[in-house]
């Protein structure tokens, strides 16, 4: 499902957010600090603050519907839609990945003209632990880059 390009993209300096909904179709949001594409190339594990994960667990267990936006500072963006698989606490490897991710993201943001006094506190000041890894299976991919083709289904 996920091409090499996508894998690299998701592992890159991207801002990510996850959306879920409850049984009454009321949506909920949580931000994602780092993600890894699993070797099956079908599933992604997103790292979410534990407190937030607890908030949306009801939704995940109720219907399992997940949407995730992956947005590069250049505004290249994709939306992934899929189904909740499982969740687990993060391990040391995950934390390392998260830290690399944060650094890469900050550097890229500065590169793309984000003012330092904004980017630095924003990225580095975000609590990223304790975190949970939420795994979901990707079913659809849409282009979300702002422009004439936004919303187009890619996969």
């Amino acid at each position, binding site marked *: 499902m996920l091409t090499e390009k996508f894998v690299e993209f998701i592992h890159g300096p991207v*801002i990510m*957010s*996850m*959306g*879920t*909904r409850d049984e*009454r*179709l*009321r*949506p*909920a*949001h949580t*931000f994602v600090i780092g993600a890894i594409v699993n070797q099956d190339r079908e599933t992604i594990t997103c790292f979410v*603050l534990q*407190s937030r994960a607890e908030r949306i667990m009801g939704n995940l267990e109720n*219907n399992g*519907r*997940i*949407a*995730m*936006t992956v*947005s590069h500072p250049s505004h290249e*963006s994709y*939306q992934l*839609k899929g189904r909740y698989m499982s969740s687990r606490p993060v391990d040391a490897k995950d934390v390392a990945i998260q830290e690399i991710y944060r650094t890469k993201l900050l550097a890229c943001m500065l590169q793309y003209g984000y003012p330092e*006094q*904004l980017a*630095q*506190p*924003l990225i*580095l*000041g*975000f*609590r990223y632990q304790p975190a949970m890894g939420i795994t979901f299976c990707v079913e659809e991919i849409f282009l*979300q880059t702002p422009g004439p083709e*936004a*919303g187009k289904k890619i996969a």
Partner: protein
Amino acid sequence: MGVLPDEIKPAMEGVIPSHGVTCSLDGTPNVTVISQVYYVDADHVALSFQFFNKTTRNVRENPYAVAWVTNPDTFETWDLELEYDHSETSGPVFEAMDMRIEAIASMTGMTGIFKLKAADIYRVKSAVKNTDERLPLAGIDK
């Protein structure tokens, strides 16, 4: 009622992008990056409607939405529970948003190409500040 406090206003300037989630009637959530959530009054916010997309389509069938905004001064984040109310193509809210878009469009050579179609007005049902998501940063100031 006054759901939105004054301290949230800096988060409504579009300095740091916001995120929003909507849900279609068939139960599929949709999450997007919002460039700016506009403060209308203590009970309302507005999102710019430039083109018809999943978000705008979703709220017109299922009005429930959430927005996640960041204060660029304090970097505190807020979760807003929203309900799509109506759309405006004129009036002070529309005009204020339109002026901003016109100014930026003129500076990027997009005059007439990038235009505000409407201002989608949402009622704010709740606004919750997240107090435990900041790391203390030594020497980091506004």
